[in-house]
Protein backbone atom coordinates (compact mmCIF):
# COMPACT_ATOMS: atom_id res chain seq x y z
CA UNK A 1 0.00 0.00 0.00
CA UNK A 2 1.05 3.60 -0.43
CA UNK A 3 2.37 5.82 2.29
CA UNK A 4 -0.70 8.02 1.91
CA UNK A 5 -3.16 8.28 4.74
CA UNK A 6 -5.65 5.50 4.04
CA UNK A 7 -8.91 6.93 2.80
CA UNK A 8 -11.80 4.59 2.37
CA UNK A 9 -13.53 6.42 -0.46
CA UNK A 10 -12.03 8.97 -2.77
CA UNK A 11 -12.88 10.73 -5.98
CA UNK A 12 -10.60 11.73 -8.81
CA UNK A 13 -10.63 12.22 -12.54
CA UNK A 14 -8.28 10.48 -14.89
CA UNK A 15 -7.49 8.97 -18.26
CA UNK A 16 -7.88 5.21 -18.63
CA UNK A 17 -4.49 3.96 -19.87
CA UNK A 18 -5.13 0.26 -20.21
CA UNK A 19 -7.46 -2.52 -19.19
CA UNK A 20 -6.76 -6.14 -18.38
CA UNK A 21 -9.28 -8.92 -18.04
CA UNK A 22 -9.81 -10.31 -14.58
CA UNK A 23 -11.78 -13.45 -13.86
CA UNK A 24 -15.14 -14.00 -15.51
CA UNK A 25 -16.47 -10.48 -16.09
CA UNK A 26 -14.18 -8.02 -14.27
CA UNK A 27 -11.38 -5.82 -15.48
CA UNK A 28 -8.35 -4.24 -13.90
CA UNK A 29 -8.08 -0.69 -15.20
CA UNK A 30 -4.98 1.46 -15.02
CA UNK A 31 -5.91 5.13 -14.71
CA UNK A 32 -3.64 8.16 -14.68
CA UNK A 33 -5.48 10.52 -12.38
CA UNK A 34 -5.12 14.24 -11.89
CA UNK A 35 -4.48 14.24 -8.14
CA UNK A 36 -3.58 10.70 -7.08
CA UNK A 37 -1.28 9.73 -9.94
CA UNK A 38 -1.40 6.29 -11.49
CA UNK A 39 -4.01 4.00 -9.93
CA UNK A 40 -4.78 0.38 -10.67
CA UNK A 41 -8.33 -0.50 -9.77
CA UNK A 42 -10.80 -3.33 -10.24
CA UNK A 43 -13.94 -2.57 -12.19
CA UNK A 44 -16.42 -5.29 -11.34
CA UNK A 45 -18.70 -6.83 -13.91
CA UNK A 46 -17.76 -4.37 -16.69
CA UNK A 47 -17.51 -7.05 -19.35
CA UNK A 48 -21.18 -7.96 -19.02
CA UNK A 49 -23.51 -6.35 -21.54
CA UNK A 50 -25.67 -5.08 -18.70
CA UNK A 51 -22.80 -3.19 -17.11
CA UNK A 52 -23.49 0.49 -16.61
CA UNK A 53 -19.92 1.66 -16.86
CA UNK A 54 -18.30 -0.76 -19.26
CA UNK A 55 -18.14 1.79 -22.05
CA UNK A 56 -16.83 4.49 -19.74
CA UNK A 57 -13.82 2.50 -18.63
CA UNK A 58 -12.31 1.84 -22.04
CA UNK A 59 -8.81 3.18 -22.78
CA UNK A 60 -8.70 6.80 -24.04
CA UNK A 61 -11.64 7.82 -21.84
CA UNK A 62 -11.39 10.78 -19.51
CA UNK A 63 -13.50 9.71 -16.52
CA UNK A 64 -14.66 11.06 -13.21
CA UNK A 65 -14.21 8.15 -10.82
CA UNK A 66 -15.28 7.26 -7.35
CA UNK A 67 -12.99 4.62 -5.89
CA UNK A 68 -12.57 2.93 -2.60
CA UNK A 69 -9.28 1.75 -1.26
CA UNK A 70 -9.01 -2.01 -1.37
CA UNK A 71 -6.51 -4.28 0.30
CA UNK A 72 -4.38 -4.63 -2.79
CA UNK A 73 -6.09 -2.88 -5.69
CA UNK A 74 -8.67 -0.13 -5.37
CA UNK A 75 -12.21 -0.75 -6.51
CA UNK A 76 -14.24 1.44 -8.86
CA UNK A 77 -17.61 2.23 -7.35
CA UNK A 78 -18.86 4.86 -9.80
CA UNK A 79 -17.73 6.24 -13.13
CA UNK A 80 -18.95 9.15 -15.24
CA UNK A 81 -17.28 10.01 -18.50
CA UNK A 82 -15.99 13.55 -18.91
CA UNK A 83 -14.91 13.01 -22.50
CA UNK A 84 -14.49 9.82 -24.47
CA UNK A 85 -11.61 10.36 -26.89
CA UNK A 86 -11.86 6.72 -27.94
CA UNK A 87 -14.51 7.12 -30.62
CA UNK A 88 -12.72 9.94 -32.43
CA UNK A 89 -9.31 8.31 -32.13
CA UNK A 90 -10.39 4.81 -33.13
CA UNK A 91 -12.01 5.90 -36.39
CA UNK A 92 -8.58 6.94 -37.71
CA UNK A 93 -6.05 4.09 -37.70
CA UNK A 94 -2.83 6.22 -37.58
CA UNK A 95 -4.35 8.24 -34.70
CA UNK A 96 -5.28 5.03 -32.88
CA UNK A 97 -1.82 3.50 -33.10
CA UNK A 98 -0.22 6.82 -32.08
CA UNK A 99 -2.72 7.09 -29.21
CA UNK A 100 -1.93 3.61 -27.88
CA UNK A 101 1.77 4.51 -27.90
CA UNK A 102 0.90 7.66 -25.90
CA UNK A 103 -0.98 5.60 -23.32
CA UNK A 104 1.70 2.92 -23.05
CA UNK A 105 4.43 5.53 -22.63
CA UNK A 106 2.46 7.35 -19.93
CA UNK A 107 1.97 4.04 -18.13
CA UNK A 108 5.65 3.13 -18.35
CA UNK A 109 7.01 6.55 -17.42
CA UNK A 110 4.89 6.79 -14.25
CA UNK A 111 6.55 3.90 -12.50
CA UNK A 112 5.19 4.47 -9.01
CA UNK A 113 1.51 4.01 -8.31
CA UNK A 114 -0.28 6.74 -6.37
CA UNK A 115 2.49 9.24 -6.83
CA UNK A 116 0.90 12.45 -8.14
CA UNK A 117 2.04 13.27 -11.67
CA UNK A 118 -0.07 16.19 -12.78
CA UNK A 119 2.23 17.25 -15.62
CA UNK A 120 2.09 13.80 -17.22
CA UNK A 121 -1.70 13.77 -16.84
CA UNK A 122 -2.00 17.15 -18.57
CA UNK A 123 0.35 16.00 -21.35
CA UNK A 124 -1.75 12.89 -22.00
CA UNK A 125 -4.98 14.90 -22.08
CA UNK A 126 -3.37 17.36 -24.48
CA UNK A 127 -2.08 14.61 -26.78
CA UNK A 128 -5.42 12.76 -26.87
CA UNK A 129 -7.30 15.98 -27.58
CA UNK A 130 -4.95 16.79 -30.45
CA UNK A 131 -5.34 13.26 -31.85
CA UNK A 132 -9.13 13.33 -31.50
CA UNK A 133 -9.55 16.76 -33.03
CA UNK A 134 -6.90 16.04 -35.71
CA UNK A 135 -5.44 19.48 -35.06
CA UNK A 136 -1.97 18.22 -36.08
CA UNK A 137 -0.74 15.10 -37.96
CA UNK A 138 -0.89 12.07 -35.63
CA UNK A 139 2.81 11.02 -35.94
CA UNK A 140 3.93 14.56 -35.00
CA UNK A 141 1.58 14.64 -32.02
CA UNK A 142 3.07 11.34 -30.86
CA UNK A 143 6.67 12.52 -31.19
CA UNK A 144 5.88 15.83 -29.45
CA UNK A 145 4.26 13.88 -26.62
CA UNK A 146 7.19 11.47 -26.32
CA UNK A 147 9.72 14.32 -26.18
CA UNK A 148 7.76 16.23 -23.56
CA UNK A 149 7.00 13.08 -21.55
CA UNK A 150 10.73 12.32 -21.43
CA UNK A 151 11.29 15.89 -20.34
CA UNK A 152 8.72 15.50 -17.51
CA UNK A 153 10.44 12.25 -16.49
CA UNK A 154 13.78 14.10 -16.28
CA UNK A 155 15.27 12.95 -19.58
CA UNK A 156 14.81 16.03 -21.72
CA UNK A 157 17.12 15.68 -24.72
CA UNK A 158 19.71 18.41 -25.19
CA UNK A 159 19.03 19.91 -28.63
CA UNK A 160 20.59 23.36 -28.52
CA UNK A 161 23.75 22.63 -26.54
CA UNK A 162 26.19 19.79 -25.93
CA UNK A 163 24.63 17.12 -23.74
CA UNK A 164 27.94 16.51 -21.93
CA UNK A 165 29.73 19.85 -21.44
CA UNK A 166 26.86 22.25 -22.14
CA UNK A 167 28.70 24.19 -24.84
CA UNK A 168 26.18 26.18 -26.87
CA UNK A 169 25.35 24.63 -30.24
CA UNK A 170 24.01 23.83 -32.66
CA UNK A 171 26.12 20.69 -32.92
CA UNK A 172 26.20 18.21 -35.78
CA UNK A 173 26.51 15.00 -33.80
CA UNK A 174 23.79 13.24 -31.87
CA UNK A 175 24.31 10.54 -29.26
CA UNK A 176 21.41 8.66 -27.73
CA UNK A 177 23.34 7.40 -24.64
CA UNK A 178 24.75 10.91 -24.01
CA UNK A 179 21.24 12.39 -24.17
CA UNK A 180 21.16 14.66 -27.22
CA UNK A 181 23.46 16.67 -29.46
CA UNK A 182 27.16 16.56 -28.59
CA UNK A 183 30.05 18.87 -29.45
CA UNK A 184 33.04 17.50 -31.45
CA UNK A 185 35.17 17.29 -28.30
CA UNK A 186 32.67 15.24 -26.25
CA UNK A 187 31.40 13.12 -29.12
CA UNK A 188 31.40 9.41 -28.21
CA UNK A 189 32.24 6.93 -30.96
CA UNK A 190 29.24 5.78 -32.91
CA UNK A 191 27.34 9.08 -32.66
CA UNK A 192 24.79 9.71 -35.37
CA UNK A 193 24.90 12.66 -37.74
CA UNK A 194 21.25 13.59 -38.28
CA UNK A 195 20.30 16.45 -40.56
CA UNK A 196 20.31 19.83 -38.75
CA UNK A 197 16.72 20.30 -40.02
CA UNK A 198 15.69 17.18 -38.07
CA UNK A 199 17.16 18.60 -34.85
CA UNK A 200 15.24 21.81 -35.52
CA UNK A 201 12.07 19.75 -35.97
CA UNK A 202 12.61 17.99 -32.63
CA UNK A 203 13.19 21.35 -30.98
CA UNK A 204 9.94 22.78 -32.38
CA UNK A 205 8.04 19.66 -31.26
CA UNK A 206 9.48 19.98 -27.76
CA UNK A 207 8.70 23.69 -27.49
CA UNK A 208 5.35 23.54 -29.28
CA UNK A 209 6.21 25.54 -32.40
CA UNK A 210 3.62 23.77 -34.54
CA UNK A 211 3.86 26.07 -37.54
CA UNK A 212 7.53 25.20 -37.95
CA UNK A 213 6.97 21.50 -37.18
CA UNK A 214 4.17 21.11 -39.71
CA UNK A 215 6.25 22.72 -42.43
CA UNK A 216 8.79 19.87 -42.10
CA UNK A 217 9.45 17.26 -44.79
CA UNK A 218 8.69 13.55 -44.55
CA UNK A 219 12.37 12.59 -44.51
CA UNK A 220 13.09 14.77 -41.47
CA UNK A 221 9.95 13.53 -39.72
CA UNK A 222 11.05 9.93 -40.20
CA UNK A 223 14.55 10.65 -38.98
CA UNK A 224 13.17 12.57 -36.00
CA UNK A 225 10.81 9.73 -35.05
CA UNK A 226 13.73 7.33 -35.21
CA UNK A 227 15.78 9.47 -32.82
CA UNK A 228 12.87 9.95 -30.42
CA UNK A 229 12.13 6.21 -30.39
CA UNK A 230 15.80 5.38 -29.81
CA UNK A 231 16.02 7.80 -26.87
CA UNK A 232 12.84 6.47 -25.31
CA UNK A 233 13.89 2.84 -25.66
CA UNK A 234 17.27 3.73 -24.16
CA UNK A 235 15.66 5.11 -21.01
CA UNK A 236 13.04 2.39 -20.59
CA UNK A 237 14.41 -1.00 -19.69
CA UNK A 238 11.96 -2.88 -21.84
CA UNK A 239 10.97 -1.56 -25.25
CA UNK A 240 7.49 -0.25 -25.91
CA UNK A 241 5.29 -2.83 -27.55
CA UNK A 242 3.06 -0.38 -29.36
CA UNK A 243 5.76 1.82 -30.86
CA UNK A 244 6.79 -0.53 -33.71
CA UNK A 245 3.11 -0.85 -34.67
CA UNK A 246 2.52 2.88 -35.09
CA UNK A 247 1.13 3.57 -38.53
CA UNK A 248 2.94 6.67 -39.76
CA UNK A 249 1.16 6.86 -43.08
CA UNK A 250 -1.09 9.84 -43.66
CA UNK A 251 -3.87 8.06 -45.52
CA UNK A 252 -4.12 4.43 -46.59
CA UNK A 253 -1.98 1.69 -44.99
CA UNK A 254 1.19 0.80 -46.78
CA UNK A 255 0.34 -2.91 -47.12
CA UNK A 256 -2.74 -2.20 -49.18
CA UNK A 257 -0.98 -1.67 -52.50
CA UNK A 258 1.07 -4.86 -52.23
CA UNK A 259 -1.97 -6.94 -51.24
CA UNK A 260 -4.00 -5.70 -54.16
CA UNK A 261 -1.25 -6.33 -56.66
CA UNK A 262 -0.92 -9.95 -55.52
CA UNK A 263 -4.22 -10.84 -57.22
Amino acid sequence: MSAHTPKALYRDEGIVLRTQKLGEADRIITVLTRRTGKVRAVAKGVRRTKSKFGARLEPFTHVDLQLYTGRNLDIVSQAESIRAYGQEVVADYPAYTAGTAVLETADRLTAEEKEPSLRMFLLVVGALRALGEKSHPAPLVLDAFLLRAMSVAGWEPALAECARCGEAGPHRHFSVPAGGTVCPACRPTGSAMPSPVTIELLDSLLTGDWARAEASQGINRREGSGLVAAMLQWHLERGLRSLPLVDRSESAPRREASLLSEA
Partner: protein
Amino acid sequence: MYEGAVQDLIDELGRLPGVGPKSAQRIAFHLLSAESADVTRLVAALTRVQESVRFCVTCYNVAEAEQCRICRDPRRVDDVLCVVEEPKDVVAIERTREFRGRYHVLGGAISPIDGVGPDDLRVKELMTRLMNGAVTELIIATDPNLEGEATAAYLARLVGPMGLAVSRLASGLPVGGDLEYADEVTLGRAFEGRRRIDA
Protein backbone atom coordinates in the same frame (compact mmCIF):
# COMPACT_ATOMS: atom_id res chain seq x y z
CA MET B 1 -0.43 -30.86 0.02
CA TYR B 2 -1.74 -34.21 -1.13
CA GLU B 3 0.23 -37.18 -2.34
CA GLY B 4 1.57 -37.44 -5.89
CA ALA B 5 -1.28 -38.15 -8.29
CA VAL B 6 -3.96 -36.16 -6.47
CA GLN B 7 -1.75 -33.11 -6.14
CA ASP B 8 -0.73 -33.36 -9.79
CA LEU B 9 -4.38 -33.39 -10.79
CA ILE B 10 -5.13 -30.38 -8.58
CA ASP B 11 -2.17 -28.49 -10.04
CA GLU B 12 -3.24 -29.23 -13.62
CA LEU B 13 -6.86 -28.25 -12.96
CA GLY B 14 -5.69 -25.08 -11.23
CA ARG B 15 -4.02 -23.95 -14.45
CA LEU B 16 -7.37 -23.77 -16.26
CA PRO B 17 -8.89 -20.29 -16.70
CA GLY B 18 -11.23 -19.28 -13.90
CA VAL B 19 -10.26 -22.23 -11.68
CA GLY B 20 -8.59 -21.32 -8.41
CA PRO B 21 -6.89 -23.69 -5.94
CA LYS B 22 -10.08 -24.34 -3.99
CA SER B 23 -12.16 -25.07 -7.10
CA ALA B 24 -9.36 -27.28 -8.42
CA GLN B 25 -9.43 -29.28 -5.19
CA ARG B 26 -13.22 -29.60 -5.36
CA ILE B 27 -13.12 -30.83 -8.98
CA ALA B 28 -10.30 -33.26 -8.19
CA PHE B 29 -12.23 -34.87 -5.33
CA HIS B 30 -15.38 -34.97 -7.42
CA LEU B 31 -13.44 -36.90 -10.07
CA LEU B 32 -12.04 -39.26 -7.43
CA SER B 33 -15.48 -40.21 -6.25
CA ALA B 34 -17.10 -40.26 -9.72
CA GLU B 35 -18.05 -43.42 -11.63
CA SER B 36 -15.13 -44.72 -13.65
CA ALA B 37 -17.23 -44.56 -16.85
CA ASP B 38 -17.74 -40.83 -16.36
CA VAL B 39 -14.02 -40.24 -15.94
CA THR B 40 -13.22 -42.35 -19.00
CA ARG B 41 -15.66 -40.29 -21.04
CA LEU B 42 -13.99 -37.08 -19.89
CA VAL B 43 -10.55 -38.43 -20.76
CA ALA B 44 -11.79 -39.53 -24.18
CA ALA B 45 -13.30 -36.08 -24.83
CA LEU B 46 -10.04 -34.37 -23.92
CA THR B 47 -8.00 -36.67 -26.13
CA ARG B 48 -10.39 -36.22 -29.05
CA VAL B 49 -10.23 -32.45 -28.78
CA GLN B 50 -6.48 -32.51 -28.88
CA GLU B 51 -6.24 -35.01 -31.71
CA SER B 52 -9.01 -34.05 -34.08
CA VAL B 53 -9.78 -30.36 -33.68
CA ARG B 54 -7.97 -27.94 -35.94
CA PHE B 55 -8.64 -24.70 -37.77
CA CYS B 56 -10.76 -24.61 -40.91
CA VAL B 57 -8.55 -23.88 -43.93
CA THR B 58 -11.06 -21.40 -45.33
CA CYS B 59 -12.42 -19.40 -42.40
CA TYR B 60 -10.13 -20.40 -39.48
CA ASN B 61 -13.04 -21.43 -37.29
CA VAL B 62 -12.47 -24.58 -35.21
CA ALA B 63 -13.21 -27.66 -37.30
CA GLU B 64 -12.90 -31.40 -37.16
CA ALA B 65 -12.27 -31.82 -40.88
CA GLU B 66 -10.32 -29.75 -43.38
CA GLN B 67 -13.23 -27.33 -43.55
CA CYS B 68 -15.67 -26.41 -40.80
CA ARG B 69 -19.35 -27.28 -40.87
CA ILE B 70 -20.35 -23.81 -42.03
CA CYS B 71 -17.88 -23.65 -44.91
CA ARG B 72 -19.03 -27.09 -46.11
CA ASP B 73 -22.75 -26.21 -45.98
CA PRO B 74 -24.00 -25.70 -49.59
CA ARG B 75 -27.18 -23.96 -48.40
CA ARG B 76 -25.31 -20.92 -47.13
CA VAL B 77 -24.93 -17.87 -49.36
CA ASP B 78 -21.47 -17.09 -50.68
CA ASP B 79 -21.81 -13.36 -51.29
CA VAL B 80 -22.00 -12.20 -47.67
CA LEU B 81 -19.00 -12.59 -45.38
CA CYS B 82 -19.02 -11.87 -41.67
CA VAL B 83 -15.68 -11.08 -39.99
CA VAL B 84 -15.39 -12.01 -36.31
CA GLU B 85 -12.57 -12.05 -33.76
CA GLU B 86 -12.90 -15.52 -32.23
CA PRO B 87 -14.55 -18.87 -32.98
CA LYS B 88 -16.90 -18.31 -30.05
CA ASP B 89 -18.26 -15.22 -31.82
CA VAL B 90 -19.33 -17.50 -34.70
CA VAL B 91 -21.36 -19.56 -32.22
CA ALA B 92 -22.91 -16.40 -30.76
CA ILE B 93 -23.99 -15.17 -34.20
CA GLU B 94 -25.21 -18.62 -35.23
CA ARG B 95 -27.55 -18.62 -32.22
CA THR B 96 -29.37 -15.59 -33.64
CA ARG B 97 -30.40 -17.57 -36.79
CA GLU B 98 -30.31 -14.22 -38.62
CA PHE B 99 -27.23 -14.77 -40.73
CA ARG B 100 -27.01 -17.15 -43.68
CA GLY B 101 -23.64 -16.15 -45.11
CA ARG B 102 -20.14 -17.36 -44.32
CA TYR B 103 -17.58 -16.33 -41.72
CA HIS B 104 -13.96 -15.31 -41.40
CA VAL B 105 -12.26 -15.62 -38.01
CA LEU B 106 -9.44 -13.11 -37.48
CA GLY B 107 -8.05 -14.73 -34.36
CA GLY B 108 -8.14 -11.55 -32.24
CA ALA B 109 -8.19 -7.78 -32.61
CA ILE B 110 -5.52 -5.15 -33.29
CA SER B 111 -4.11 -4.16 -29.93
CA PRO B 112 -0.75 -2.39 -30.14
CA ILE B 113 -0.43 -2.24 -26.34
CA ASP B 114 -0.35 -6.05 -26.29
CA GLY B 115 1.95 -6.09 -29.31
CA VAL B 116 -0.77 -7.39 -31.66
CA GLY B 117 -0.72 -5.72 -35.07
CA PRO B 118 -2.55 -6.49 -38.34
CA ASP B 119 0.19 -8.95 -39.34
CA ASP B 120 -0.58 -11.12 -36.30
CA LEU B 121 -4.19 -11.56 -37.42
CA ARG B 122 -5.62 -13.37 -40.44
CA VAL B 123 -6.05 -10.15 -42.38
CA LYS B 124 -3.99 -11.24 -45.34
CA GLU B 125 -6.04 -14.43 -45.60
CA LEU B 126 -9.20 -12.32 -45.56
CA MET B 127 -7.89 -10.17 -48.41
CA THR B 128 -7.04 -13.28 -50.42
CA ARG B 129 -10.58 -14.56 -49.89
CA LEU B 130 -12.07 -11.28 -51.05
CA MET B 131 -9.92 -11.21 -54.22
CA ASN B 132 -11.99 -13.73 -56.20
CA GLY B 133 -14.98 -11.37 -56.24
CA ALA B 134 -17.60 -13.82 -54.95
CA VAL B 135 -18.18 -11.74 -51.84
CA THR B 136 -20.19 -8.56 -52.38
CA GLU B 137 -20.94 -7.62 -48.79
CA LEU B 138 -18.64 -7.62 -45.79
CA ILE B 139 -20.10 -7.44 -42.29
CA ILE B 140 -17.53 -6.51 -39.65
CA ALA B 141 -18.63 -8.07 -36.37
CA THR B 142 -15.64 -7.39 -34.14
CA ASP B 143 -16.31 -6.62 -30.46
CA PRO B 144 -17.79 -3.20 -29.73
CA ASN B 145 -14.78 -2.22 -27.62
CA LEU B 146 -11.79 -0.10 -28.47
CA GLU B 147 -9.67 -2.82 -30.09
CA GLY B 148 -12.65 -4.14 -32.04
CA GLU B 149 -13.55 -0.68 -33.33
CA ALA B 150 -9.96 -0.01 -34.34
CA THR B 151 -9.82 -3.34 -36.18
CA ALA B 152 -13.07 -2.48 -37.95
CA ALA B 153 -11.71 0.94 -38.98
CA TYR B 154 -8.52 -0.69 -40.26
CA LEU B 155 -10.39 -3.33 -42.29
CA ALA B 156 -12.84 -0.80 -43.69
CA ARG B 157 -9.96 1.31 -44.96
CA LEU B 158 -8.19 -1.72 -46.38
CA VAL B 159 -11.14 -3.12 -48.34
CA GLY B 160 -12.56 0.31 -49.25
CA PRO B 161 -10.95 0.40 -52.72
CA MET B 162 -12.38 -3.04 -53.59
CA GLY B 163 -15.89 -1.64 -53.97
CA LEU B 164 -17.63 -3.99 -51.52
CA ALA B 165 -20.56 -3.04 -49.35
CA VAL B 166 -18.96 -2.86 -45.89
CA SER B 167 -21.06 -2.67 -42.76
CA ARG B 168 -20.48 -2.74 -39.04
CA LEU B 169 -22.82 -4.36 -36.52
CA ALA B 170 -25.14 -1.81 -34.91
CA SER B 171 -24.65 -1.03 -31.27
CA GLY B 172 -27.25 0.32 -28.94
CA LEU B 173 -29.65 -0.58 -26.20
CA PRO B 174 -29.91 -4.16 -24.99
CA VAL B 175 -33.32 -5.76 -25.42
CA GLY B 176 -35.11 -5.93 -22.09
CA GLY B 177 -33.11 -3.10 -20.54
CA ASP B 178 -34.03 0.30 -19.14
CA LEU B 179 -33.14 3.47 -21.03
CA GLU B 180 -32.25 5.42 -17.90
CA TYR B 181 -29.50 2.96 -16.98
CA ALA B 182 -27.76 3.06 -20.34
CA ASP B 183 -24.35 4.74 -20.38
CA GLU B 184 -23.98 7.83 -22.57
CA VAL B 185 -21.65 6.21 -25.12
CA THR B 186 -24.07 3.37 -25.83
CA LEU B 187 -27.11 5.66 -25.78
CA GLY B 188 -25.33 8.04 -28.15
CA ARG B 189 -24.67 5.15 -30.53
CA ALA B 190 -28.30 4.08 -30.29
CA PHE B 191 -29.34 7.57 -31.39
CA GLU B 192 -26.84 7.58 -34.20
CA GLY B 193 -28.10 4.24 -35.50
CA ARG B 194 -31.84 4.83 -34.96
CA ARG B 195 -34.18 3.54 -37.63
CA ARG B 196 -37.42 4.68 -39.13
CA ILE B 197 -40.61 2.85 -38.16
CA ASP B 198 -42.82 2.27 -41.16
CA ALA B 199 -46.43 2.98 -40.34
